[in-house]
């Protein structure tokens, strides 16, 4: 039995060493990201210029995005997409994990679109998340792999564990492919469901925090026929934004109540002390060991 044990142990050791050698040699596995000069995400450009997600900076950025050189600019007389309106926006689910559901309609001018040599288009949605919620990048990646979105990325503060008062805002940029045939219609409707999670909120007297979601910022980017991928894109901004037809989505998240603070601390420490005393008492008086003093052997 002893020798079998030893053999097993040696086998385990050899396997462990082989594994470590494997890792040390550094076999090249893993996905490599194609690094084209083409900026996939708008928000990458934002974060090149600014440190963190602040509303005023973002408004500046939006104003300049069309002329920032990221894409070709359309001539003024062409207005392929006249306006967009948010039809519906609400939260699905209960508790700390919910889905933000949005339904958006774009009004299209088919004549303008027909003048452009478009290959395909995608809708870019930038959701600026309020401070109390976050999106899990790994969950979103999983959704992307399942084909729910074309591309999706989270920007800003992505620390999943910090409570709300310590973290900055984050933003989610979602790309969804649009079938070019749609452009023969007069309207394009897209539906989005974004999974979100609540952070621990700052303390509140009422016991709940109310988080309001602002409307998303929308763009359309199209790839022009015949040119190389990393040079030809068109930004179509939807300059006219119709008033939202629905109420803003509001999330009610439980938060701690400051009034509890003292009593919770006191009772917690008292309980810890009581438990300690119980265990110490049991160890010293109730076990069947003889007391520690040495006595002469009888």
């Amino acid at each position, binding site marked *: 039995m002893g020798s079998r*044990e030893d053999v097993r142990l040696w086998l385990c050791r050899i396997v462990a060493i082989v*594994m*470590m050698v*494997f*890792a040390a040699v*550094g*076999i*090249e*596995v*893993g996905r490599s990201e194609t690094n084209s000069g083409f900026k996939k995400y708008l928000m990458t450009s934002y974060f090149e210029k600014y440190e963190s997600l602040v509303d005023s900076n973002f408004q500046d950025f939006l104003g300049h995005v069309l002329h920032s050189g990221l894409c070709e600019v359309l001539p003024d007389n062409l207005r392929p997409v006249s306006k967009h309106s948010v039809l519906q926006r609400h939260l699905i689910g*209960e*508790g*700390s994990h919910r889905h933000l559901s949005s339904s958006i309609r774009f009004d299209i001018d088919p004549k303008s679109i027909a003048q452009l040599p478009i290959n395909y288009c995608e809708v870019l949605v930038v959701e600026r998340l309020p401070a109390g919620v976050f999106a899990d990048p*790994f969950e979103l990646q999983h959704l992307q792999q399942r084909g729910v979105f074309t591309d999706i990325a989270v920007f800003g503060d*992505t*620390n*999943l*564990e910090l*409570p709300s*008062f310590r973290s900055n805002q984050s933003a989610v940029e979602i790309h969804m492919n649009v079938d070019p045939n749609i452009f023969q219609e007069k309207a394009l409707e897209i539906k989005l469901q974004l999974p979100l999670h609540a952070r*621990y909120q*700052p*303390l509140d007297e009422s*016991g*709940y925090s109310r988080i309001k979601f602002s409307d998303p910022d929308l763009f359309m980017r199209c790839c022009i026929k015949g040119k190389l991928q990393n040079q030809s894109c068109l930004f179509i901004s939807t300059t006219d934004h119709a008033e939202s037809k629905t109420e803003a989505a509001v999330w*009610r998240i*439980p*938060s*701690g*109540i*400051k009034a*509890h*603070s003292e009593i*919770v*601390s006191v*009772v*917690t*420490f008292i*309980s*810890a*002390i009581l*438990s*300690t005393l*119980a*265990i*110490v008492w*049991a*160890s*010293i008086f*109730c*076990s*069947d*060991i*003889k007391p*520690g*003093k*040495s*006595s*002469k*052997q009888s």
Partner: protein
Amino acid sequence: MITTNIRSLLRFSALLRVVLIIYGEWQDSHMEVRYTDVDYLVFSDAASLVASGQSPYQRTTYRYSPLLAFLLVPNSIIHHSWGKFLFSASDLLVGYFIHSILKLRKVPEDLCKYSVMVWLFNPFTFTIGTRGNCEPIVCAMILWIIICLMKGNVLQAAFWYGLVVHFRIYPIIYALPVILVLDPLFFQSGFKPKLLNWRLRQDKNAQSYSKMADQYGLWTPVKTIFAKERIVFALVSGAVFLSCTALFFYFYRWEFLHEALLYHLTRTDPRHNFSIYFYHIYLQHECEFSVVEKLISFLPQFVVQMVLIFRFGQDLPFCFFLQTVAFVAFNKVITAQYFVWFFCLLPLILPWTKMKLKWEGFICILVWMGAQTHWLLWGYLLEFKGKNVFLKLWLASLVFLAANTFILVMIIRRHNYSPVFEQLEAATLKNVVKLQ
């Protein structure tokens, strides 16, 4: 009851785990709720980063030793379930080690089998390995350290101890009992330590037992603190721990130090968990904790550990078990995976308990599971229904601490305290000289 031997038990358990891993794969790809633990995905991502030559700490929330990422590199090469098979194999190894330890202490075969079954067929145990949690590896290392000590291999025990503390910080609590047990009365260079027979557990007048009680006064450890075995153990384990730390610091710098070590020592997670401190931490998280506050919350933990070590240190597995339960119960953060740490030690103390399953054992199990379920109910209302039940959840965690205390007190009261080692006779020394 069919008579089975340990091999069939292990084979059956292995089969069960393979089936569960395969089922887990199916559930992951066909259902919304995953079978695999989120942590396993973290390890796998870190391992694939390592395989492509990068730092595993680029993966957020990876807070373990790089060794774990190295072990899981075959996830990217062979199959992404390699890790689960590795953890389940460690799980089975733990069962095998439990059997070895009990056999070394001369426990009868059927008691051995039942004890091993308590580990192998515990639903918590077989789900934790198959879901991809790395705790079975730590448990296997701890049990192997106990075996090494029982066989007198102090060097090997020290090596694995240094490694396990590097892997997971909590085994540092076992340092003092091990040092206490490495008494020159029990350990002499040249031959194996003598183990106290299980049959003598209730015989209070046994020669060896009373002799031990006489010799073991309060000042004995102080006098022999610089015994050879103790120094060797301390130096070797310290050296192993420091070399691992230095090696990985060389590769991964401050990120490694912060994520793998410092984070665990300064962790104050305000999110809800079983610990009684969670609500206090959440209510205070907007202000920094004062040094006094930190000391006060550390004091109960410290006092309990010290009392347990000095009272029960000679019965090593029993001491480890009590320490681990107390450590988890008084910790600032308690997650369900910490329970495995003492589940692996429970079978080692069962043959010495006076508690029968009917009804004392049953009541203990019911109280513990009941307190847990009660907490989980409130946790569900908070997290999945969005109701503000913080106060009730906190009260539930106090109830859970009370349940843990109750279990500890019951087990201490109903245990046949039985030191592992016996004093080596002077006669044995003479025999060794003859052999040589």
